């Protein structure tokens, strides 16, 4: 028997939402945070990666910001607050350097290094890395009872899991030692470089990139290496944070074959890594009425030109019913495809939440509240927990 999301999230303080692009991951993260606030889960932070304009509108914000902002939630229980922030990779890197650089001079040199901005902005894994850094920082701060984090879109949506350790490996790589060697030796820079240039690696690198560029890279990494211990330390911390039982992963998918295949891969991979799966959220599922046998039979009869017309209804009504039946059957065909895709799910987790497809109106918080209630029905949760207190099992 499936359990609902409120039960899964008892005692949980970090939720990571992952899934393929285009399945409504960010909106789900925001709705989940809102639902948690309405369920009285205390101070809740939703950290989004790439929020849509209308999500900001729905939350009544001018725009999202790297700085955490509180959002007014009508009828929120006392002590429960919804905070939101958008992960701005470039601003977060600057914060990171300001916090962890060993001294003000190194800090300034890093921030003004021309490669620094390029690297932190363009290199895709940098988003993954900074998302995990930010999670670590807000968790450390102890300001929130629950943190819901949307994960960055990337080649492989689970790349972010490895980002901290990869970053640490990166700064400790022997190649980095090689490339910075001439600069670490100092002094006769040119002479040294000339000597090293006879080595295969430098010969290739120099011919491809040019020595000036090589020198720029070396300076950048030498500066960054002053923060190396911190990177390793936090990578270990993040690893521990992700593996706790109170951190849960929520996989979001639609019932289209490709996203669903990816969701299955995520679920398997999370299991393999020993991470705790919270729920699978199946988003925008077509409603049950499309599968009603009598309705389908009626619709098929209505569109069948050979079937006799019902003499009790007017020609106008017959025409309207015929149109409605065509539309009904078209949508039912999409529904069949969804059920077929759904049936391919081999190992669904205990908690599978189906969010029915409703034309979502995110003009204001109302639309998001409606979605939140579908994800995490507040009244039902209250009743159930009241009952479970009375009858211990």
């Amino acid at each position: 028997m499936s359990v609902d999301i409120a039960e899964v999230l008892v005692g949980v303080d970090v939720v990571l939402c992952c899934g393929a692009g285009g399945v409504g991951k960010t909106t789900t993260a925001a709705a989940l945070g809102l639902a948690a606030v309405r369920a009285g889960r205390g101070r809740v932070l939703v950290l989004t990666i790439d929020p849509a304009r209308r999500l900001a509108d729905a939350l009544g914000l001018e725009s999202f910001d790297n700085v955490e902002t509180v959002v007014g939630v009508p009828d929120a229980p006392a002590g429960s607050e919804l905070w939101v922030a958008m992960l701005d990779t470039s601003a977060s890197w600057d914060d990171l350097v300001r916090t962890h650089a060993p001294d003000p001079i190194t800090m300034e040199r890093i921030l003004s290094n021309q490669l620094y901005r390029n690297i932190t902005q363009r290199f895709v894994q940098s988003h993954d890395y900074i998302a995990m850094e930010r999670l670590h920082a807000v968790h450390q701060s102890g300001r929130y009872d629950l943190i819901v984090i949307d994960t960055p879109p990337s080649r492989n949506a689970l790349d972010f899991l490895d980002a901290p350790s990869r970053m640490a490996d990166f700064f400790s790589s022997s190649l980095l030692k090689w490339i910075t060697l001439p600069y670490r030796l100092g002094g006769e820079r040119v002479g040294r470089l000339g000597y090293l240039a006879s080595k295969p690696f430098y010969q290739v690198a120099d011919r491809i990139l040019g020595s000036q560029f090589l020198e720029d890279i070396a300076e950048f990494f030498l500066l960054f290496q002053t923060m190396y211990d911190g990177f390793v330390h936090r990578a270990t911390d993040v690893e521990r944070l992700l593996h706790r039982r109170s951190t849960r992963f929520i996989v979001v998918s639609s019932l289209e074959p490709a996203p669903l295949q990816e969701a299955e891969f995520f679920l398997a991979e999370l299991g393999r890594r020993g991470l705790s799966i919270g729920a699978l959220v199946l988003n925008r599922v077509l409603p049950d009425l499309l599968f009603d046998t009598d309705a389908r039979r009626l619709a098929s009869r209505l569109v069948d030109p050979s079937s006799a017309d019902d003499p009790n209804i007017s020609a106008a009504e017959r025409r309207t019913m015929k149109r409605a039946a065509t539309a009904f059957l078209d949508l039912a065909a999409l529904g069949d495809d969804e059920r077929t895709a759904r049936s391919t799910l081999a190992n669904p987790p205990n908690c599978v939440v189906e969010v029915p497809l409703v034309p979502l109106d995110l003009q204001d918080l109302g639309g998001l509240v409606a979605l939140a209630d579908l994800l995490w029905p507040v009244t039902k949760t209250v009743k159930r927990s009241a009952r479970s207190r009375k009858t211990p099992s």
Partner: protein
Amino acid sequence: MTPDLFDRRLLIVTGKGGVGKTTVAAAIAWHAASSGKRVLVCELDAKGDLLGALTGADAVRSRPLAFEPREVHPRLHAMVMDPEASLKEYLKLNLRIPFVGRIGSLSKAFDFLANAAPGVREIVTIGKLAYEVRERHYDLVVADAPSTGHIVGLLRAPEAINELVGVGLIRSQTRWIIDILHDAATTGVVVTTTSEELPVNECIELLGRLRNELAVAAEAVVVNRLLPQSIVAADASAITRLAGMVDASSQPAKAKVLAGALLLDALSSARAPHLDRLLAAWKGPLALVPTVTHRPTGLAVTRAVAQHLAEELSTSREPSDARGPR
């Protein structure tokens, strides 16, 4: 008459994640190959979806695509991009450094370079595509490219490298790549979207950036997975009226048929303004591709989409002709 989509030599298919880029790329390649062209279709991020779209899920598991192109249908060759393999091929062809072969795995060095020097991964990717175009091994090269968020970085990579690297071989080798990308008769970007809000936003934003920041031509917009067009506004109001008169407890089946029809209408109405915005922003070639239902997978979907693309994009036409019902 201006040459159409299928006369280009390099088509780069992009769009927001989840809109069906891979299917559209496979459909373009399929159609071109069916009409007698020698085609290379290349999956830029190795997710394995491309082979599925060209064959079926079973083939993906038994023998995935590799960097070395493979003929999956007559004249239709498919490969998956591997930036490291591409760099190795490039070094072998261009540097003639005797020890390149002896380095063996370049992976650590490559990871380092790719991470340290932004654009290296992109340049060897776009470089490989441009190389295949220049060498004329194929009549058409189709790239199943990354999503809108990453495509600008990919297309701008040759210029970015020029700005970043003062000298060096890469810099001197970027010119011909830029020439291929900037020639509108050779290269075009196909932006794929659905008629939903966020994909349309990204589509319009990318069309703007292609126009203003990049000298790479947007070739066509494909609106994928349109909802069935079985209902028009006049029907909808009649159905709403009727639904108000039907008693759900005495006529449950009838009530459900009407409710289902109204749901489809509500979904279509929610999407209509986004499609309108797109039509206002884009006056070029446009293809509207309906959702393919009845459980087809893989190649069956690709072929159905290919047929739509062929009908709507093969001949140049006034954009107004391409605007069907929605």
